[in-house]
């Protein structure tokens, strides 16, 4: 019978759903989570993006709790971590990085203000672990081991815990009430802290007391010296001793009116700026290469120069005579190394401070012949942070790595996890790493231009005469808005773009917090969703089967 359609046809609404256009597809979209570069470069292994995301929503307590999963010292890190996260932040390629450390500081300070406690430790394991050294590495290890349910005793040779945080970093960068409060909070989580307890021979200590494992992080606090021809007319000291003295007996150190600091690292800057605050009239940093090549961070050099510190770059000190330093001028060779350029000059000084790097005093390891000590005092550890001695783990500045407080905190965490597995006769299995969310995976059209909010600086008169904190914090609203500059690289932040741009309605929105689902019955594989995802949380893969 011939098909005789009527003049007008009525078709049922939505009846095209019978037509499964998914069969057209040759590639299919997928949701995935990629590692944001900030997280990748945080030495403490913080999930920065996650806590920025919570901060964006005003969920500050949860944000802080997310930080302390990995790092128990947010208020400290928000101040003195050199934030490698910001150096790798994808937003830098747009205008400036997210001011991650300022937000971390805001959360850290809020937690102290509100008295938020650290998480309750796991049930008691019956194991007892000794941590030697109360610097960032030791504190971090102690905290994480305590979280895992172990009894932890932390010993430190100094009258107070903190290590370099206290005896190396000046108060104008890290106020002591903040330092004390974050250490106290670790103590309150159940870590026994014994100060004024120095260990001269570890093997003896461990022989006399039974511990199930030991974590060693005594740092590197022996100042490096050089041989200099001197007629003793200018007193010499080193940065470590000087900064230590500032903390132990603040009234004693005096460097005189004309202070010269030799070296180009952050410690040299700390000494110079401290000298300014002590009233020195002329503070000069002598460095053998150029300002650009100084290992100190550019912003700290800037701040020191603002405070009146003078920089004599491309100079070495060759001798001390008649109250004067003899300087030789340098130029950089093709490889960027300084070579004498033939000139010389003198510089009158009341004192000279060496800030030429630090080495480790590993004398307490004398009872462990199997542990090799390198020329600079560092000892090596395996991928579990264990030394050649069974059950003895080590980290922080005393093992070869970047010498930063955040690296030390990372070591402490890593060692704690491995110690935990070691005590349970297990190996910690490395987790498969997600791929990194590189800048070119982002569709930056969707991020409005928004400059970084920076922290206000203390007024200059106070900066040069007091040890008051130089940088102020960001307030609540600024922190929240600054957090919203985070682009959520590599992880869905629920912008609904994929859902909106699918011409085939093949994406279902599952509601807040539940993300989205793809209906492969209808997805034609056009790739629009992937292309218009701002943050690179999707990708196309060849159709399987």
């Amino acid at each position: 019978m011939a098909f005789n359609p009527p003049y007008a046809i009525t078709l049922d609404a939505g009846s095209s759903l019978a037509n499964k256009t998914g069969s057209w597809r040759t590639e299919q979209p997928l949701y995935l989570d990629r590692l944001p570069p900030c997280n990748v470069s945080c030495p403490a292994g913080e999930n920065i993006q996650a806590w920025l995301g919570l901060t964006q929503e005003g969920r500050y307590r949860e944000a802080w709790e997310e930080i302390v999963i990995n790092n128990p010292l947010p208020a400290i890190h928000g101040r003195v971590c050199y934030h490698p996260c910001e150096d790798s932040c994808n937003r830098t390629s747009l205008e400036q990085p997210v001011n991650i450390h300022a937000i971390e500081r805001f959360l850290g300070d809020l937690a102290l203000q509100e008295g938020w406690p650290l998480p309750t430790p796991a049930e008691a394991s019956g194991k007892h672990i000794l941590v030697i050294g109360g610097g960032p590495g030791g504190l971090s290890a102690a905290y994480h081991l305590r979280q895992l349910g172990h009894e932890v005793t932390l010993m430190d040779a100094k009258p107070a815990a903190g290590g370099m945080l206290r005896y190396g970093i000046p108060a104008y960068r890290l106020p002591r009430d903040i330092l004390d409060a974050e250490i106290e909070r670790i103590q309150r989580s159940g870590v026994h802290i014994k100060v004024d307890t120095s260990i001269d021979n570890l093997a003896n200590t461990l022989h006399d007391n039974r511990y199930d494992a030991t974590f060693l992080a005594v740092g590197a606090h022996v100042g490096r010296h050089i041989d200099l021809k001197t007629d003793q007319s200018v007193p010499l000291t080193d940065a470590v001793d000087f900064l230590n003295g500032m903390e132990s007996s603040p009234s004693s150190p005096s460097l005189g009116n004309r202070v010269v600091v030799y070296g180009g690292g952050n410690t040299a800057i700390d000494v110079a700026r401290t000298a300014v605050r002590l009233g020195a009239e002329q503070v000069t940093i002598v460095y053998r290469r150029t300002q650009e090549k100084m290992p100190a961070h550019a912003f700290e050099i800037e701040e020191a120069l603002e405070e009146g510190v003078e920089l004599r770059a491309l100079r070495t000190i060759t001798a001390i005579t008649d109250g004067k330093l003899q300087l030789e001028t340098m130029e950089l060779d093709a490889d960027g190394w300084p070579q004498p350029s033939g000139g010389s000059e003198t510089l009158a000084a009341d004192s000279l401070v060496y800030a030429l790097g630090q080495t480790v005093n590993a004398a307490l390891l004398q009872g462990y012949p199997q542990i090799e000590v390198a020329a600079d005092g560092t000892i090596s550890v395996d991928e579990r942070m264990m030394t050649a001695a069974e059950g003895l783990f080590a980290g922080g500045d005393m093992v070869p790595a970047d010498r930063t407080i955040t690296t030390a905190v990372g070591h402490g965490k890593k060692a704690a996890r491995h110690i935990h597995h070691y005590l349970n006769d297990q190996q910690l299995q490395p987790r498969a790493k997600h791929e990194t969310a590189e800048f070119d995976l982002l569709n930056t059209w969707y991020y409005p231009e928004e400059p970084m909010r920076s922290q206000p600086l203390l007024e200059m008169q106070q900066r040069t005469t007091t040890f008051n904190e130089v940088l102020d914090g960001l307030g609540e609203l600024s922190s929240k808005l600054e957090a919203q500059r985070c682009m959520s690289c590599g992880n869905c932040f629920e912008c609904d773009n994929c859902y909106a741009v699918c011409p085939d309605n093949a994406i279902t929105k599952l509601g807040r917090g539940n993300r989205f689902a793809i209906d492969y019955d209808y997805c034609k594989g056009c790739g629009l969703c992937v292309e218009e995802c701002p943050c690179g949380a999707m990708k196309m893969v060849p159709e399987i089967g």
Partner: protein
Amino acid sequence: MTTSTVEFHQTGDLTAGNRLQDEQQASRQSTQQRFNSLTAGHRACQGCGEALGARFAIDKVMELTGDRAFVVNATGCLEVFTTPFPESSWNVPWLHSLFGNAPAVATGVAAALRAQGKSDIRVVAQGGDGSTVDIGFGALSGMFERNDDVLYFCYDNEAYMNTGVQRSGATPPMARTATTPIAGANPGNPFGQGKNMPLIAMAHGIPYVATATISHLRDLEAKVAKAMEIRGARYIHIHVPCPLGWGSEPADTVKLARLAAESGLFPLFEAEHGEVTDSSKIRRQVPVEEYLKLQRRYAHLFGKSADAEGIAAIQKIADTNIRRFKLLREEE
């Protein structure tokens, strides 16, 4: 047009939504309640801009009318890919008659509803650029002149796509189509021909005329909302890239719409009673090459036989638009 003045929310109003934003501030398309007036199973090509534009527009109409709207569709891809017998992808009352008569049919539907006293049911008509600019032009002009209570959407993919990419009055200069091949001294569509339909609509003095594009979703929805506040003849011209006809990647459909707007080739503006009232400012200006080079219909402008003069002539069109519609933000 300025759609909202939200406090900074990571993506401002650039994305469809954002978990940091109230749903009221976000686009209709970002909500779970959106109508899906044009649903799945349709036979549009992968990455079809027209399917997207139509869903954006009609969903907004359905939201604003409380689901009481009537859609009249001209012949063209949008009609063919949604209603091959015996299926329909439409979830709305929908009527198709002929290629050139959609405006007249919509006028009739509006008159019938008026006669029945059903003033709450609103009438919308829609068609491609061919049916709007060329073959239905007379009917549309009449609808404008009579100020019939119809909102007309033109989905402009810049050629007669459904029948195999023939040139229309909306095809841009130098574009290759089946009827403007790459041959002779002036390859592709000639300069100086064609019609600017939004300006022609404005010349009728109707209450509301706007241009919109699928890359600027909130702007598009805001214009539909504005149009729906008004009674009488209204016209919205929506730019909808076509991967098949333009020779572009399906994944680039929204990007192309964005580049057309950001280069100035497709100006976004609004007009009331014949006067331009507002235009959307360019955010990240790009040269026209950025837009042209992603499309094979302009392939003859690039590569071995690169045509710098041709590109410059197209750039001139963009520059003229930028001046004419004040597309650049004024320096503060």
